[in-house]
């Protein structure tokens, strides 16, 4: 039986900005999900028997905050009324931050919504790509949103898309986060998805640049204990490496319905959430069905799902057979395989070389170095122990 762990809801395809690297072709469309569609989704999800102990809901792409607070107040009340008693449902926004005002901060705090803000570092880096439709940078508005969240005591993390320019500037990025009081950071890379072709991926030496960036950022964080409390790429790599041999690996992105996505029309997709909204003739634009027309539980047996699963599994088997890093990634991200290699049934991508392999190399290399300090083969003095963060 499928297990939904993350429900990604696209309440509108519209985004109020127009980032150069955005893969969403429909981001100028101002349509909004109907209340009935949301009700159908959550009624079916809760009745499916596919929820285990909790459900995470992320309100995502386009820009979720272009819809009014009243929309979410109504939606969350409705969802709360539909959910089984005792089931924890945790909501999240992934936002560009430009629309965050005091009223949003009050609502986010009141509803206990987790917030991720997309910001690409200091202004000179952020405004290269994160721009309005008229081409103006969005840095000032995003930072204003972040400062409001801070003033209201609303916890948040940031996701920063790294390009060739920012990869060359770890210290500048670090100083920026410190200056803004940002202590939870996630790094994405500018990747090839949909119609977007990554310029960063085409750069010579980009994988080594990623290794160097992460290594230096990690070193800076360790030298300033308590200031950067979470670096997703480092924490994830360590979690995937320092685990007991009995612990397996679960690839959420390759497991049907572990991540379930719905667009504003009620269309349902699974596997990598980016797939929903992309065009693809072979896989019917990745749409398995529609909650206004189909039973969610019937979608698990559709020929389209089985075909996608077969191809994704074939790709995973290629990874298992030939990749040294399989145990830390479980076969990677289907969307990257499709748009880099042209097929789900494929293995290595630039995306995985950067974000999985090089991050793993970094942690293993640091462990080797520590082991060298311990057994005396490393000539340099061991680094000073730093105080634990509190």
């Amino acid at each position, binding site marked *: 039986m499928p297990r939904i762990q993350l429900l990604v809801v696209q309440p509108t395809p519209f985004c109020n900005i127009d980032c150069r690297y955005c893969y969403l072709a429909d981001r100028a469309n101002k349509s909004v999900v109907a209340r009935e569609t949301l009700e159908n989704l959550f009624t079916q999800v809760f009745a499916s028997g596919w929820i285990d102990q909790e459900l995470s809901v992320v309100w995502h792409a386009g820009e979720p905050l272009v819809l009014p607070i009243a929309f979410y107040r109504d939606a969350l009340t409705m969802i709360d009324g539909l959910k089984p008693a005792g089931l924890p449902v945790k909501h999240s926004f992934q936002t560009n931050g430009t629309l965050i005002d005091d009223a949003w901060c009050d609502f986010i705090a009141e509803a206990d919504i987790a917030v991720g803000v997309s910001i690409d570092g200091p202004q000179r880096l952020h405004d290269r790509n994160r721009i309005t439709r008229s081409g103006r940078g969005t840095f000032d508005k995003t930072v204003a949103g972040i400062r409001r969240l801070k003033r209201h005591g609303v916890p948040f993390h940031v996701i920063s898309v790294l390009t060739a320019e920012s990869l060359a500037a770890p210290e500048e990025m670090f100083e920026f986060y410190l200056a803004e009081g940002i202590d939870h950071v996630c790094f994405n890379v500018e990747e090839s998805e949909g119609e977007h072709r990554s310029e960063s991926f085409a750069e010579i030496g980009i994988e080594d640049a990623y290794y160097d960036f992460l290594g230096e950022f990690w070193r800076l964080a360790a030298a300033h*204990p308590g200031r950067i409390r979470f670096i997703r790429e480092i924490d994830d790599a*360590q979690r995937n490496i320092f685990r007991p041999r009995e612990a397996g690996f679960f690839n959420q*992105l390759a497991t049907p319905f572990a991540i379930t996505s719905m667009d504003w029309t009620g269309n349902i997709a699974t596997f990598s959430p980016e797939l929903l909204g992309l065009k693809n003739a072979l896989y019917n634009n990745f749409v398995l069905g529609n909650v206004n027309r189909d039973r969610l539980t019937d979608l698990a047996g559709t020929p389209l799902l089985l075909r996608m699963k077969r191809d994704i599994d074939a790709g995973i088997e290629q990874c298992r057979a030939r990749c040294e890093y399989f145990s830390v990634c479980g076969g990677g991200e289907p969307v990257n395989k499709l748009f880099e290699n042209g097929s789900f049934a494929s293995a290595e991508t630039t995306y995985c070389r950067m974000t999985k392999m090089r991050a793993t190399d970094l942690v293993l*290399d640091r462990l080797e170095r520590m082991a060298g300090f*311990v057994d005396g083969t490393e000539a340099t003095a061991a*680094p000073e122990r730093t105080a634990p963060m509190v």
Partner: protein
Amino acid sequence: MSLRLKYQTVLTQLAPAGAVGVSLALGAAAPAAASQAPVDTQPSATDKDKVSERLAAVRDAVTAIDQIRTDAAKAEGRLAWGNWGFGWGGGGGYGWPNWNNWHNWRNWGNWFRNW
């Protein structure tokens, strides 16, 4: 010394500081001027050991440390030590799967951090 023993030795020393302490120590173990050092000059075991073997050795070390701690706790009639391993509970209670989370989001659940 085998890879497993080498890793077990260093992780045994680091583990009492918890996951945060391990991360801080490894983060600080950067070569001087890490940002300027070419990757091919940085320390690595890849020349002699395959990555898959290194990963397997780390996990064997983690399991061994876990077992030692659990046995010691049992002998002393106390609870096994707290989680140190990035969400992997001591004493074999591995209740949470290792997830490959979607990168355009961040899981705010508390299953992977214990500090």
